[in-house]
């Protein structure tokens, strides 16, 4: 594709390939891609290991792991194992595998870690509320033209643009 090892793909080409992967998923499985669902199942598995009673007594956890159900025996969980491997292979082949922190020049590493944790927390909460994340709602739901997915996508981007100014120190 691109002869320069360190460069990213052209965005339109990457989007086209991503679209083909999504299309293949529709054709083979009759469902879309996802990510946050697998995270939910992982954390449910952890809670289920520590306290199975707690999982059975919480109606939300119980959906994933009530009784004898194994929350990890799931399509999205195996998809995410693949995502981790695919990302690793791409990073290795491009020479991008390295412990590092992404941030703007005006924030400390620790500051960035704190924001990443906080932002992750909001995203984790929001993704459960919105019944999916950028992959499961915006991408997969967007391509099937689901009304709620488009409503989700536009609110998410709108909210991000509205608050972006307040967090410019982290990135610019």
């Amino acid at each position, binding site marked *: 594709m691109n002869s320069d090892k360190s460069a990213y793909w052209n965005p339109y080409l990457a989007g086209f390939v991503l679209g083909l992967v999504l299309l293949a998923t529709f054709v083979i499985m009759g469902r879309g891609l996802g990510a946050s669902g697998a995270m939910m199942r992982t954390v449910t598995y952890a809670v289920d290991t520590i306290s199975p009673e707690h999982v059975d007594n919480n109606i939300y956890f119980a959906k994933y792991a009530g009784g004898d159900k194994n929350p990890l025996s799931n399509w999205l969980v195996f998809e995410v194992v693949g995502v981790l491997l695919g990302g690793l292979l791409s990073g290795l082949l491009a020479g991008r595998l390295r412990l590092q922190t992404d941030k703007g020049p005006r924030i400390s590493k620790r500051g960035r870690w704190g924001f990443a944790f906080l932002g992750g927390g909001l995203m984790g909460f929001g993704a459960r509320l919105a019944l999916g994340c950028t*992959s499961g709602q915006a991408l997969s739901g967007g391509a099937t033209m689901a009304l709620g997915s488009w409503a989700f996508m536009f609110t998410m981007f709108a909210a991000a643009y509205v608050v972006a100014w307040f967090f410019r120190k982290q990135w610019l």
Partner: protein
Amino acid sequence: MSAPFYKYDFFGFETGLLIAFIIGILFGFTLERAGFSSSRKLALQFYFRDMTVLKVMFSAIVTAMIGVLLLNLADILDISKIYLNPTFLGPQIGGGVVMGIGFVIGGYCPGTSLVASAIGKIDGFFYIAGALVGMVVFAEIYPLIADFTQSGGMGDATLGNWLGLKPGIVAFLIIIMALAMFAGSEVLEKRFGGQVAAGGNGALANASEPVEEPAPAE
């Protein structure tokens, strides 16, 4: 029609998991190649400096959408058997707002945080830890907000039946909108400093000590 293959019993649940793994590899590889393993590259989207997120997402949505419609026209793919995200406007708009804020603060979305972590991004690790905690919090307070999570329910609503238009027309409008946004993105990137993040987060430069950039245009 014989697709989606899984719904027509070409293979079972366990084999489906195996396919999930393979599709996941392709998904993760593409996300990383698109540059989505860098939080800064993702976040610069919100300052009009690097519009990669928008370009990739809409090219992908348009590609998959056209593919689904064409395969359906060719009598290969049965659209009614594809999972359609149900519409609950309340939680989806509410969740959208929370996630939009979380995106700017955290710099990733859940899927991209996974590929970032896979290549050693420390902020990706913290993001995932945060997301897992956020999900536990959600599960714990779910009984209190259960009503809200069901609000604005419209079942299997699509853009087409909401607007009263045929799917083909809606797809056409989405393509026009995507092309307009692509054109707009190119203009914005030229105006606001273009590809600053692309080089800064590649293998050559250390992303934690990026090169000096011009002050934000305000």
